[in-house]
């Protein structure tokens, strides 16, 4: 069964079309990633799934229920909005119990203790929310969204502003929730996270769907048109090479995108004639590269 089904949904604010004729299916039990630049319609789509906004047109079904209109909050969903805060003066334990009670969950004390420990926050029940750092607060908010064991967990940019350690901790926690049988839908700007965590990736750009599928299928659509190269010197002007359309310079290595039908071996010969090649790989484009190809300004990655 699919957790979320969206069909032909359009949402406008005033004259601005935030989401245009969008359709998607989130399969049950999967990890589904939303990517897309700021202001492309990710949060609007998520808010429509949450029934905070109503679509102007189209159908939305969530966990088998028609969620197109009305404003019934669904206790089977856990939600961490992008704009998130909690009562600053409340104690963490009390706060989490309150959040759970709003979802109809009681007797969650043991779960609260377990999750606080799991997320390196053991002993924080008696601390006030305002005493926490931003990263800690974010983890507490995550706990608040899962205490009622939701069937569908929706996280709007759960990793933003986290350091690598906390990011890792949160990632593992999310995967644990998935293991318990929940469907996870989250949005992110971190392409590495999306590549590693998501079974399905969905990209929205200017309110329209531009990518939808497994990482594999998306990369296959783009073909093996990318060369990953590391050389000894930096003297090569890659973008003037015949058959190279575009260059992503990552400093220690470079990604070249070949024009359609170009010969990778011819390009390799050309480079070898100029400098010493340490690494050469014909690869499919990374998700980051695909993202930039779709949404990036033309100059951003061009030398």
């Amino acid at each position: 069964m699919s957790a979320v089904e969206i069909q032909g949904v359009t949402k406008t604010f005033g004259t601005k079309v935030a989401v245009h004729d969008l359709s998607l299916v989130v399969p049950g039990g999967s990890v589904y990633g939303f990517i897309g630049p700021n202001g492309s319609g990710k949060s609007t789509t998520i808010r429509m799934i949450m029934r905070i906004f109503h679509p102007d047109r189209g159908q939305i079904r969530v966990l088998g229920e028609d969620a197109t209109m009305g404003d019934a909050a669904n206790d089977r969903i856990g939600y961490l909005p992008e704009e998130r805060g909690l009562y600053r003066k409340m104690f963490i334990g009390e706060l989490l119990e309150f959040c759970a009670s709003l979802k109809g969950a009681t007797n969650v004390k043991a779960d609260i203790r377990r999750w606080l420990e799991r997320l390196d926050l053991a002993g924080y029940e008696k601390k006030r929310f305002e005493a926490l750092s931003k990263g800690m607060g974010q983890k507490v908010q995550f706990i608040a969204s899962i205490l009622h064991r939701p069937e569908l967990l929706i996280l709007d940019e759960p990793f933003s502003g986290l350091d690598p350690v906390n990011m890792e901790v949160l990632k593992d926690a999310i995967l644990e929730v998935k293991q318990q049988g929940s469907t996870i839908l989250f949005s992110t700007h971190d392409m590495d996270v999306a590549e590693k965590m998501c079974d399905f990736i969905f990209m929205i750009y200017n309110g329209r769907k531009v990518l939808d599928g497994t990482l594999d299928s998306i990369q296959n659509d783009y073909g093996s048109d990318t060369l990953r190269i590391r050389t000894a010197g930096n003297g090569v002007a890659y973008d003037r090479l015949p058959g190279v359309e575009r260059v992503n310079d990552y400093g220690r290595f470079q990604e070249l995108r070949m024009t359609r039908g170009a010969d990778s071996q011819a390009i390799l010969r050309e480079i070898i004639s100029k400098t010493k090649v340490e690494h050469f790989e014909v690869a499919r484009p990374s998700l980051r590269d695909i993202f930039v190809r779709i949404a990036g300004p033309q100059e951003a990655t061009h030398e």
Partner: protein
Amino acid sequence: MSKIFYIAKREYRATVRTRAFLVSLILMPIFMAGGGLAQKFLEGRVDLETQRMVVVDPTGKILPALVTDAERRNKEDIFDSSTGRQVDPKFIIEAGPSDVLTDEQRLDLSDQVRQRRIFAFVEINSDIFKADRANPHAIDASFYSESAVSNDLNRWFTGVLNRTVQAEKLRAAGLDPVVVNKAVARVNIDVFGLYARGRNGEIRKADEVSRKAAIFVPMGVMMLMFMSLMMSQAMLQNVLEEKQQKITEVLLGSVRPFELMMGKLVGNVGVSVTMVALWLSGGFYMLHRAGYGDLLRNELIVWFLAYQIIGVLIYGSIFVAIGALCNELREAQNYLMPVMLILVLPMMVWFKVLEEPMSNFATGLSLFPPCTPMLMILRMSATAAVPIWQPIAGIAGTLAMTVACVWVAGRIFRVGLLMQGKPPKLTDLMRFAIKG
């Protein structure tokens, strides 16, 4: 339903636990009592510096009368009869520079007042003794001092002047001023409250204290209502803060906007009832100890609570809606203005209503829903004569308004909560209210 309860419980506990709640709980009665004490204290503080007055008297008869009475007063009237301490300033009368003042001289005298050499100066009209003047409104005397407001010197002067002129006119008409004064002396009337049957069945007459209580109890009860309605204003800040701290959307992931609003309203009613219950029982206890417990009739307390709950719901829902529409307190001021005007309207007419609680004016205004909670309770605590249909009609009217306010506020709340940017215009509001 249970979600409304959880929201309400949190709101209630969060508010009651704050220091602000405790402070206002204690401070409010202190302020009210303190206001009375401060007035008592200030009454005793009078500037005892001698006040000089220059009198320009072309008739030659007023000045000697003023001088004589001032001397008598300086000897007899300005000391406290029991302690012998001086409690009022001395008055000293001086003759003016000439019989008729020029503008130049008026300016000079005015400057002397400004320099504190004299306190005031007076010009007497030479026609002042003419019994039948062509113009009855002609001015008989002019009193100049720094403040145009009446003061002790002015009052004393007016009194002496009137007595002198009357006596002179009576003599001119061949009448004995002493006889006439006795004949026209004021008749003394005292105003009493009604007789009542006391707790032990004895018939009790209204004494001096119960007369005062008859004013202070209704006033206190109405002030209490006013304060509990005003307290709902905290709801506005509460909603604003949740918006600013980004809590709103987290909550909307779990509860419907209407549940969120109702929870807040119920919590606020709880806070308000708690505070008033504490104050009321304090006031009740004190009245009982003073032996005037029957002034606060039991059914009055029931009506008070009913009106308070309804009133707090009405104004609370309005404040909540305003809070949802704005992103900053500054923006809220525009919307707040008309609400405040309606809220303080009863405060502007309360004395008229208390004077005649059964007049058409009082009855009509007390049935106007926004004013009902305060004015109906004021009338009912002023007199037991309010027929029962009126408070019931009042409840019906305010209840209807409550439902309307909560319904409209719920729709505005829903739209406003996640709105960013400029607050909407009135036309937008109507659209939200109708379309939802």
